[in-house]
Each structure stands twice: as C-alpha cells, then as structure tokens.
C-alpha cells in the first residue's frame, strides 16, 4: 500500500472514537475524528476522506442521518462511502415508521450499517472491501 487511506470517524463518544481510531490506525489507516456533525463538516471541507464512519444519535437524535443526507445532495461528497455505526439499529428498525419517518421514507443515505458494539474484525473487513482491497 503506497498511500494510507483516510478515514473520518464521527461519534460523540470519546471512548468509541479513541478505541476505533486506535484499531483502525493499527491496521494502517489514517484516521481523523469529529465529535459532531458540525466538526465533521469542517474536517470534510479540509480534505475529502476516502471513507466516513458515522454515528446517528449525537447532539440530536438524527444528527448523523442529517449529515449523511446533506452530503448525499452535495456533488462534492455524494460518492463518499459512509458506514453508519449506531447503538440504535434495533431501535431504528422497530420504530422506523414513527421516529425516523423523514429518513426512512427516503432512500437510505448509507449503504452500510453496523450496530454498536461493533465487531472490529467485521468492520475492518468491510472497510477493506469498500476501499478496494486497500
């Protein structure tokens, strides 16, 4: 691998950020982190990452979704691969029609979704797959 892939990790939980960052870095990725949607946007503007890992519930219940949709409608970022990482997969599924109606009614903003706590081996395999065996 000539150049390290650049991953932006967005999560409001510092321990999640630290631990996943550590695991990713140990596996030869360059990792930037952001604790919320706004900080994430700033990081995105600095440099478009190769991949983004995104939490859903941060300051608001749908901050991650909102960011993902904003990026999808922006030509600069619409091809950015996003992995959603949430501790509320079960909840999103079960309560979808009510709580997240404005989101689930539309096309899903991210192709990949992991439930916390994430199995780091599976996550690494997925990232590797997305970045083309990088």
């Amino acid at each position: 691998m000539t150049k390290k892939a650049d991953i932006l990790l967005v999560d409001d939980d510092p321990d999640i950020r630290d631990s996943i960052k550590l695991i990713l870095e140990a596996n030869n990725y360059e990792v930037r982190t952001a604790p919320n949607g706004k900080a994430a946007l700033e990081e995105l503007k600095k440099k478009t990452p190769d991949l983004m890992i995104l939490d859903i519930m941060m300051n608001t219940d749908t901050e991650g979704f909102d960011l993902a949709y904003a990026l999808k409608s922006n030509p600069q970022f619409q091809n950015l691969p996003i992995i959603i990482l949430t501790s509320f997969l079960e909840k999103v599924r079960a309560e979808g029609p009510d709580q997240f109606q404005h989101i689930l009614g539309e096309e899903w903003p991210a192709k990949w979704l992991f439930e916390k706590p994430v199995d780091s081996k599976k996550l690494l395999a997925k990232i590797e797959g997305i970045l083309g065996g990088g």
Partner: protein
Amino acid sequence: MSIELEGGMTNFPEELERRKRIIAEELKDRTLWFVQLRWWVPPSIVAVTVIAKFLRVEFPTVPLFVVAFLMLAYNVVLYVMGKQITDSPVLDINFIQQYTFWQVGLDYASMFLLIHYTGGAASPLIFFFIFHIIFASILLPPRVAYGFSAISAIGMAIIAGAEYLNIIPHHALYFRGRAINLAEQPFHVMVELAFFTASVFITAFSVTSIMKMLRKRIVDLAELTEKVNDLNNKLQSLYAMVQAIGGALRLEQVLKIVTTELATVMNVKATSVKLLSEDHKTLRYASAFGLPQELVEGKKTIELAKSPLNKRIIEGEPYVTGKVSDRDAFQFGEELAKARIQSVLFVPLIFENKVIGILGAYCEKADRFQKADVEFFQLAGGLIAIALENARAYEEIENLVNERSRFMMRVAHNLRAPLAAMLSILEVVKDGYKGELNDEQKEYLRRVDRRARTMIDLVNELLLLSQSRATNRKPIFEAVDIKFIAGRIERTFQDEARDKGIILKISVPAEPLIIQGNPLGIEQMLENLVSNAIKYTPSGGKVEVSMTQSNSGIKIEVSDTGIGIPKEEKHKLFSEFFRASNAKAIEEIGTGLGLAIVKEIVDQHNGKIMVESEEGLGTIFVIYLPLSQEGNKNENRSEL
C-alpha cells in the same frame, strides 16, 4: 328564553299545499284508474246490446255502437294524456283536476246520448250517474260533486222535457213488442226525475261528508307517517353519530361525519362546529359542511365582540336563532348571504358545565328553525361535546405514550452507550492492540466481554418489550414473505450451528408463504426461537424449522433435540425474566426475555403458540399465524 321562536306554529300556506298534494296524489292514481276501467265500457255496451236484443228488448242499435266507438276513441286520447301525467316528475295539481273534469264531461255526454237512445227518462242507465258522483265526492272538492249532481239532474230534465215536447225524437224501449213508454205519462216521469235528483244529491252529500272526515284522517295519518319517518331519520342520524364518536376515529373524521349527517337529516344547507379559543375571545371552525369555502378553509376566526349571536351562546343561552338579513348580528353576514343562507340556529357545545364551542345550522329558508329542530340540535350538540372531550383525552394519552416512548428510547440509549464504549475499549485490549496478553488474562477479559454483551441484550429486549406494550396501536402490517425471512434466519444461524456441531434444517414449501404482518417482528420471533434452540441443544443434535400453509394461516414449527423444559416450569415459560433451571445450568447468563418477546409478537399477529417438551429429549414450538388480520376488530377500527 330570550328569543321567541319565529315560525314556531304551523306554516299555513305550506301546510295547505302539503295536504292538497296528498289528495292530488290519490286523485292522480284514481283518475288514471278510471281510464283503465273505461276500456271495459264499449265492449260492455256491445255485449249488453246483443243480450238485450236476444231478450227481445228493442232500441236503436247503431247509435249505441257509435257512442261505444266514441268512448273508445276519447279513452285512447285520455290514456295518452295519462301517460304524460305518470311520466312527469312534478305533480301538476291543476292539470290533473282538469284532466278529471274532461273525463267526467265526456262520460256525461256519452251517458246522455246512451240514455236518449235507450228510452230517455225511462232508460235504466240513468242510475249510472251515481258512479261519477261518488268518484267526484271522494277525490274532488265537495262543490264539484254537487255540480256533477246538478248537471246530471238538469241534463235528465232537459232530455225528458225535450222528448216530451217533441223537440228531439223519443226512442222508446220495446220489450217483446211492447213499448216501455214513460214519456206518455208526464207525472210519472216528473216523479222519477225528482227521485233521481234526490238520489244523486243525497249520494253527493253523504259521500262528501264521510270523505271530509276520512280525508282529515288521511292527512293526519300522512303527517304522522312523515313525523315517524323524520324521527326515524333523526334516530338513525344520532346512531351514526354515536357510532362515529365511539369508533377509534380521528376527531376530524368524527366531526366531518357529524356535520354531514346533521345537514342531511335536518335538511339544511350547512352545519358547523366552532371551537372556543383559550382566551374565550374567538371561535374557529373545527369542521363544517356546506359553508362557503372562504369562511372555513380560510381559517377565519370569529371574534365574539363582532358576533352577537355567538356571544350570546358563549354567555350561556341554550340556543339562538337568527336571520341573516339582520346583518349586525353576524361578523360574516355578507358571506352567508352570498351563500343564500337566510336563517341560522346555534346551540352550545357544553362539557362539564363549560361552553367549549358552538354547533351551528344554516338554512336557505327564512325562519326555518322550530322547536323540534332546536331540541334535536341540542341533543346532537351533547354528543359532539363528548366526541370533542374524547378526542382531547385521547390526544393526552397519546402524548403520554409518546413521551414515555421517547423516554424509554433515551434510557436505552444512555444505558447502551457506555456499554458499547466499554466493549469497544475492551476489544482494543482483548485483541492485543496494547500488547500481548497471556491466556488467563484473555479468559478474564472474555468473561467481562460476555457479561457486558448480555447487559446490552437485556437493554435491547427490555426496550422491545416495553415499546410493544406501551402502544396498543399495532405496527403497520404489510405483506410478509415468511419464506424470505426463513432464508435470512438460515444465513444468520448456519455458522453458529456448524461451529457447535448442530444440524440446522429449515424446510419451506415450494409455494410462497405470504401473510399480513410485521416483518421485523416475525424475524425477531424466529431469531429468538432458533437462537434458543441452538443454545440449548448439545453438539450432535438437530434444530429444525418447518413451515406449512393451511387455508387460514401459516404453521411454523421450531423443534430441537435439546435439553427440553422441565414439566413443572412450563407454565412460566413465557413470563419475563424466567429461565428454566436446566437452562441456567448450561448457560449461566441469559436475559429471560426472549420467549416473552416471542409471545408478544405472536399476540400482536392474533396468532397462537404452543409448546411440547420432554426434558432431555427436546422441545417443539408450534406457532400459528393467521393469513390476514381481517375480522380483527382493533385493526379494522384503526383503518376506518
């Protein structure tokens, strides 16, 4: 009561018109019936003539046949005109009366001719006049009946007189060659005519007198019938309203049904439900039927200061009626007048002694609303007030449920977040990112990991269960392909089963298995059952899932060759936090919520779950899910 009920008494011209119509309806039927009867007269004349000739009664035959032919001819004309009357959508009383006069006139002319040719005053036919007089007495005004009597008497007098004076020829009847010639005995003729005259007048008098009484009864009866119909309609309308209010409908729908129903049954142009604002200064339209759109959809608010009629209701009057021509009484009088509304009736919507709004009716007629309308309207107002309060209470409950749901979601998130973070950090250490660990350290960290994961499962499952119980409302049901879910279950568990040395076999029929249900719920249910089966089946065992379709539903069997459930614990199987003693012995950790969730989901689908188990041999869960939720009351109601 501050306002006199205008038009509270019977409206006379209207009433009279109505009575006339009832009689006219009858007259129409009878007068047309007369046309039918008349078809029999010409053949009868011919037949009687032939029989009379056979009995050797002699009289001029040809004129009688001519009269018979004429009767046939004018009856054809009357028949054609009668068709017009039948086909006409409106009842033209004058036309029907004239039509009747023409019938009687033509019949009289024919009668006079027949009598003239069959012996004049001596003719046996003279008593046939009685028929028309009875008919007229029954269905036409009394003076007409007396008129007909007079015409027949005078006509007969003229015929007798003219024949006697030889102004017209006398055609005597001959019986077996002998003339029955009364004309030669003027006194006899006069007496006969006098009695004939008396007979027709007495007939007219008695029948009209009886009819006067009967007619009144007919009208009373018709009125009563109308009143009963009206009451019946009102009752049905009230019933429809009660049903609407009792049904689990949205308030908007209830009010829409109620306003439409009321407008129809009261036969008014428009109805409205207006609600009082918090500050008691304005009203807004909550629902309306038939009112101008700019009033209702424009969301105009009615200011009590500008609307004296509304103000009086809010201040406690039991009802008010008003004329739109009195423009000062209305804030939107112009709009109402433009919609051709002339009179209004307002009653309060009262709940717990407080006026919460106003029910209004609007009519295109002036002074339309009478005592019965007011009473009925107040009744309807009572029902609507209940509906409004129901809706408010329901809304509050819904808010509470939502609040609780949001709270539970937050709690679960906040319980899970530190656990997830903990596990994430643990993984860093456990997987050796911070330096190699010895086996003992690894084993202890594995235990920490397992307990933390159980904790997360517990939070998940508690959340699921509380969600499902917090809302009585069912999740939206859709067509669920159970075969598809079976495929997913197989993929989810095949590795786990293989690793544990268990055969996992899922058999489904060739045809699709579609039911109406909640796909996430059904998948969760199967996940829980299969996961349990694998967990409690020792290596070398077998877990089987089979699905079959019957006429009314789908049967799912999940069987294993596992440890089974102790008989004495079976009854507790589906209760929360229950774990069988032999299960605890194998796997210390478990939430005890898996089967409670399965039960919850089966119930949600109106299904059944049964369990057969033999300790040490295995367990079979049999689930039956109906194909659709039709006939399920709750579901139907929420879809109305």
